[in-house]
C-alpha cells in the first residue's frame, strides 16, 4: 500500500488560522450595514439549473450587499412520488425504485430497503450475503464520497481533484456493471438475498481497486488538505454546533464534523459491524473544512472495512434457502415440480410480509438512511417511506448560510453533500 504523502490530524493547527481570524485573508461575514444604503434586500435566484446546486435545487437568496440575509430553498423539481409508486408494487418490485433515488450510492439504498423488509419478515440472510452487502455498502460510501469530493473541489475552482476522483469512480462503475449489468441503476438486492452470486474475478478486481485507490486519495489529499485557497474557503464557513446539529437532525458525516460521534454502524449495529475494526472520525469545529476532513477519513476507514470484509467473505449460498422467500434455481425449476410452483407463486404473488411496521436505519453515505415499511399482510406495502438524510441536511442550509457571502453559500451547499433525487423522491 502506498505511503501517505501528507499527514494531517483532525485537529487544526494554529498556523492554519483558527483562533482570531483566518490567516488566509478575510472571509468571515462582512458586516455591510452601510448607512444610507438601507434599501430593500436584493433577491437573487440560484438554480434550479445551475451546476453549483448539485442537482435541480433552487435557492432564493435575500442579500444585503453580498451578505446573505436569508436563503429559501425550493425543492421538488425531481419529485417522482416513489413512495406512492411503491404502494402499487410488490415488495421486490420496489427495489428498482430505491436506486433511482440516490444515484450516487445506489447499492446502499438497495440494501437498506431489503434489510428493512427482511427485518419485518424475520428473515435472517446468509452469512455470505451479509458480508457481501457490507462490501457493497462500503464500496458505495467511497463511490459517493468521491463524487462529493470531485464536485466540491470543482466548486472551489480546483479541477484536478475532480478528474482524479472520477477516474476512480469509473472503476467502481465498472464493478457495478460487472455485477449487475448496470452502471447506476443497479437494483442488485432481493428480499432474502442478492440478484446473483458474485461473478468470477469480481473480488480480484475490487482488490485491485483497493490497492490503487489509496494512492489517488493521497494525491487528492495533497492537493486540497493544506491548500491555502481550500482552507480559506472552507474554514469557519457554515459552522454549526453539536447541539444545533442534533436538533436540526443532521446525521452522517455532517453531524460527526460537529463533534457528535453518532454512527449507525456503531450505535445501532447491523450485519455485525461491531466486529469490524474501524474508527468513526469526528470533527471539532462543525464547519465545511471539518466536513471535508471527516469524509476523507471515512473513505480510508471504508477501505479498511473492505479489506476485512473481503478476508472474511465465506462460501456457501447467497440467498436464504427458503422457497417462500427466494426464487429456486433455474435448474430446479426445470426439473422439479415443487420448485416450479414456488417460482410461480413468488413471481405472481410476491413474498409474503406479515402485518406490522419496521423502521430500519443504515449508515448511508449522506447520513442515517431509514427505511420505514408498513405491511398489512398483503402482496404490496401499505406504506413505504424513506427517511431521507439529504432532505433533512439540506433543510438547515438557511441557518448555515446566514451572514455569509454568496460564494460561501456555494461551498456550504457543496459541503452538505446532497443528492436531489433523494430529496425530491
Amino acid at each position: 500500500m502506498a505511503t501517505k504523502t501528507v499527514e494531517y490530524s483532525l485537529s487544526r493547527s494554529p498556523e492554519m488560522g483558527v483562533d482570531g481570524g483566518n490567516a488566509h485573508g478575510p472571509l468571515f461575514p462582512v458586516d455591510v450595514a452601510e448607512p444610507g444604503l438601507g434599501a430593500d434586500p436584493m433577491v437573487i435566484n440560484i438554480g434550479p439549473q445551475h451546476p453549483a446546486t448539485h442537482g435541480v435545487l433552487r435557492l432564493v437568496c435575500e442579500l444585503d450587499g453580498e451578505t446573505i440575509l436569508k436563503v429559501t430553498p425550493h425543492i421538488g423539481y425531481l419529485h417522482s412520488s416513489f413512495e406512492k409508486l411503491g404502494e402499487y408494487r410488490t415488495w421486490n418490485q420496489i427495489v428498482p425504485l430505491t436506486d433511482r433515488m440516490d444515484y450516487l450510492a445506489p447499492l446502499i439504498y438497495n440494501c437498506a430497503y431489503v434489510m428493512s423488509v427482511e427485518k419485518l419478515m424475520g428473515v435472517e440472510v446468509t452469512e455470505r450475503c451479509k458480508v457481501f452487502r457490507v462490501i457493497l455498502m462500503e464500496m458505495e460510501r467511497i463511490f459517493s464520497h468521491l463524487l462529493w469530493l470531485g464536485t466540491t473541489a470543482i466548486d472551489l475552482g480546483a479541477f484536478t481533484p475532480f478528474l482524479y476522483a472520477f477516474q476512480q469512480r469509473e472503476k467502481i462503475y465498472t464493478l457495478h456493471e460487472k455485477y449487475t449489468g448496470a452502471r447506476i441503476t443497479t437494483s442488485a438486492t432481493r428480499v432474502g438475498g442478492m440478484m446473483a452470486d458474485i461473478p468470477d474475478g469480481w473480488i480480484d478486481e475490487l482488490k485491485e481497486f483497493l490497492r490503487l485507490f489509496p494512492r489517488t486519495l493521497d494525491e487528492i489529499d495533497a492537493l486540497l488538505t493544506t491548500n491555502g485557497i481550500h482552507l480559506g474557503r472552507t474554514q469557519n464557513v457554515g459552522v454549526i454546533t453539536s447541539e444545533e446539529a442534533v436538533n436540526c437532525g443532521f446525521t452522517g458525516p455532517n453531524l460527526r464534523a460537529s463533534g457528535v460521534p453518532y454512527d449507525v454502524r456503531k450505535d445501532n449495529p447491523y450485519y455485525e459491524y461491531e466486529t469490524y475494526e474501524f474508527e468513526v472520525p469526528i470533527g471539532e469545529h462543525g464547519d465545511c473544512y471539518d466536513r471535508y476532513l471527516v469524509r476523507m477519513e471515512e473513505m480510508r476507514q471504508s477501505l479498511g472495512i473492505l479489506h476485512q470484509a473481503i478476508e472474511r467473505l465465506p462460501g456457501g449460498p447467497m440467498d436464504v434457502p427458503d422457497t417462500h422467500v427466494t426464487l429456486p434455481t433455474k435448474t430446479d425449476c426445470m426439473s422439479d415440480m415443487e420448485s416450479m410452483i414456488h417460482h410461480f407463486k413468488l413471481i405472481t404473488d410476491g413474498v409474503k410480509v406479515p402485518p406490522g411496521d419496521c423502521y430500519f436505519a443504515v449508515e448511508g453515505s449522506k447520513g442515517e438512511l431509514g427505511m420505514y415499511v408498513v405491511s398489512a399482510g398483503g402482496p404490496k406495502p401499505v406504506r413505504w417511506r424513506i427517511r431521507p438524510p439529504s432532505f433533512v441536511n439540506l433543510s438547515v442550509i438557511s441557518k448555515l448560510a446566514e451572514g455569509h457571502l454568496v460564494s460561501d453559500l456555494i461551498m456550504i451547499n457543496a459541503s452538505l453533500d446532497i443528492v436531489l433525487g433523494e430529496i425530491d423522491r
Partner: protein
Amino acid sequence: MRDHMEPPAGSAFEAVEKGLVTGPAISVRLAATTVSHPTVDALRARFRASVQHHEISAGDQHVVYVEAERNREILQWLKEDPAQHYDLLSDVTAVDFGGGQPLQVVYQLWSVPHCRGLRVKCELPLTALEIDSVEPLWRTADWLEREVFDLFGVSFKGHPDLRRILMPEDYAEGHPLRKDFPLRGRFTRAEQTRRALSQDPHDQGIPGGSSVGREPQMPGGGTLEESDCSEPSPGLRG
C-alpha cells in the same frame, strides 16, 4: 431427473391447488422479545391514560400510541427528561391505511446518549387532521412536517411556515399519498398540462413585499404577467 417422482402428500403442489399456501414458513429468527422498554414504563407512569397502546413490531421495535392532543407535551418530556433524552428526531411521517381508518402520524425518535430508539404514533381521524407541531422542539420537524402536510394534508398547529414542499405551491389536486388519491392524479392529463404551462415563474417563491423579484419587465413596458408570454400557445394546451 425427478420427473417420475410423484409429489408427496401434503406437498406445496397440493397446497397450491387448494389455495392453502398462506403463512410464510420462514427460517425465522422469531425474536419474541417481550422485554419492556424503559421509556415505555416511564411514559405509562407519567402520562397514564394518554399512553393508549404499546406494541412490539418487527421483533424488537417498540411502538407507543399516544393521545394526539398531548403529542407535543409528551414528546417534549421525551426529549428533555434526562433519563429519556431523545434528542434526535429521525423522522416524522404519516401512514394512511385507507378505508376510512384513522391516519397515523409517526415520530421516529433516537437518543444519541442512550443509544435507544422509540416510535411514537398519534392517530388522527380523517375528519380532523390537525396536530400540534413539534417544530419548536426539533428544527428537523420543519421540513418533515411540511412534507406530511403536503402529501397527507395534516395541518400542524404552531408550525412557522406550513406550505407545500415537494408539490408546487399552487397544486390543486389534493394530497398525493392519501389512499383515496389516484395514482395518476385527479385532473386529466390535458388539465395538468394546461396548469403547468400557465404558471408564471415569477410567482414561484420570490419573497413577498420585495419589488426586486418582479423588476425585469418586457421591452414594451408591461410586466411579464401582462404580456402574452405567460399564456401557453394554443397548440400546447393538451
